[in-house]
């Protein structure tokens, strides 16, 4: 799906990076724990989170997320938006909760970055 299609599907507001919505997304990682995003997110995936602080943008930049989707209708502070524009990371905000947003994307062909975490250092890929 492109970010355009994701925006439409989730009735999301585009808060940053409106010029980069043609990007194609195949994978996603949903988390409110940034440590887990750092450990398991794959390059090109969309980060789905309920956090709104500027760290989410820095993490997205570090792990090469294609975009950030903020759930539960939260609107991040200005610092987050400014940083996202600077680092060219699209930020979308949807009113759907994390479960609903993830489920709707999954139903439209987006899959997780990994399937399961079996134990320390043992990840089950897709």
């Amino acid at each position, binding site marked *: 799906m492109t970010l355009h299609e994701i925006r439409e599907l989730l009735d999301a507001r585009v808060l940053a990076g409106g010029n980069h919505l043609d990007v194609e997304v195949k994978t996603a990682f949903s988390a409110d724990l*940034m*440590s887990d995003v750092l450990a398991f997110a794959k390059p090109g995936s969309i980060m789905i989170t309920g956090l709104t602080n500027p760290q989410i943008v820095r993490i997205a930049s*570090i792990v090469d997320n294609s975009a950030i989707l903020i759930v539960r209708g939260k609107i991040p502070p200005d610092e987050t938006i400014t940083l996202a524009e600077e680092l060219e990371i699209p930020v979308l905000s949807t009113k759907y909760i994390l479960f609903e947003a993830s489920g709707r994307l999954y139903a439209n062909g987006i899959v997780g970055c990994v399937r399961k975490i079996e134990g320390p*250092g043992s990840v089950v890929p897709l």
Partner: protein
Amino acid sequence: MSQGYKFSFPVKGDNFDDAGKASVEIKRFLKGLGITGDVLRRTAIAIYESEVNIISYARQGNINICVTDASILINIRDNGPGITDIEQAMKQGYSTADDHIREMGFGAGMGLFNIKNCSDDFEILSEVNRGTLLKISINR
């Protein structure tokens, strides 16, 4: 570049608003040196985790990087409380982070484990009440 390209970034402890700032800058810098793809990503993640560790536990620290043709060597030094039990600290899910750190989405006990995962070579030297030194090596 046979001598290697060296640079250093200071990190101040307890300054959560700036968490990740040094890492994002370092990543941009390394990209400028021609480092790309998985190597760049692993390096950036290892540095990010280390930066958050300094901010969470130490008053100040330093990220020293040396880029050679063969590898990226990263030394992270802090003057924090040190690690009493390194084996336990390495375990996935073990953390001594307080609520403030957890509210920011950190302190999941993934940090050191994730750094090791991103490294080709990894060593921790720590002395209680003195500080910690992480030695990370990533092959290019």
